[in-house]
């Protein structure tokens, strides 16, 4: 639709016209600001934690392990200089080969989700696969952060409380049966 709108504006005499081909799907998938009736409903990008430790393919594992421990984390996300996700290193699963490079020991292509995924659907995916977290990335593969299942559950529970419904783990003592 936007190429036709751009052509129409050009016909009306506008000269500096640009077509954002990715549109709002691309914008929201990157976790960038949105407005509107549904904008206050939290998505994965809104509650992902943005404190991941990152490293490059050629970083020595001994250095990576130190940085991950200092940050109180268990994993390092291997990215390009442009922040595109390539892999993940879990330091608790490493052999003692500290001379290895991140590229030698990383899990390639970790699963990611977009920043505009709804919390209900991501919780379903995480539960089905029995995993506690998932990486959030933009449509062009750049790291946004890590989404934790516990954060998703808390956020959904808060939403229920705000909507006047009892949270799942909350016993309502005064409701009619």
């Amino acid at each position, binding site marked *: *639709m*936007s*190429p*036709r*709108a*751009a*052509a*129409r*504006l*050009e016909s*009306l*005499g*506008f*000269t*500096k*016209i*640009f*077509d*954002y*081909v*990715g*549109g*709002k799907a*691309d*914008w*929201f998938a*990157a976790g*960038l*600001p*949105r*407005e*509107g*009736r*549904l*904008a206050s409903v939290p998505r994965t990008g809104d509650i992902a934690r943005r404190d991941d430790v990152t490293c490059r393919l050629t970083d020595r594992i001994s250095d990576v392990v130190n940085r991950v421990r200092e940050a109180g984390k268990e994993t390092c996300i291997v990215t390009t200089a442009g922040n595109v996700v390539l892999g993940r290193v879990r330091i608790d699963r490493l052999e003692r080969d500290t001379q290895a490079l991140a590229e030698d020991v990383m899990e390639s292509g970790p699963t990611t989700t977009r920043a505009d995924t709804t919390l209900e659907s991501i919780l379903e995916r995480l539960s089905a696969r029995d995993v506690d977290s998932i990486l959030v990335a933009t449509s*062009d593969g750049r790291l946004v952060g890590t989404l934790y299942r516990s954060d998703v559950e808390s956020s959904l529970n808060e939403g229920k409380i705000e909507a006047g419904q009892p949270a799942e783990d909350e016993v309502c003592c005064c409701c009619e049966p």
Partner: protein
Amino acid sequence: MPTSIAREEVQRLMREEAAQLVEVLPTQEYQDEHIEGSINLPLKRLDRETAGRLDDNQPVIVY
């Protein structure tokens, strides 16, 4: 000819050249959710009068 651009260029044009961001989808879709700072000019109603909301001296980005 309109130029196709990616997200980074949209952000740069808005930040550095005060570009006007225009959602051309129907009003209902715009009201549900839109990019922060965008205005709505639905394609079906795009004519000389509605386009008058735009400053033709500044870049216009449609999506």
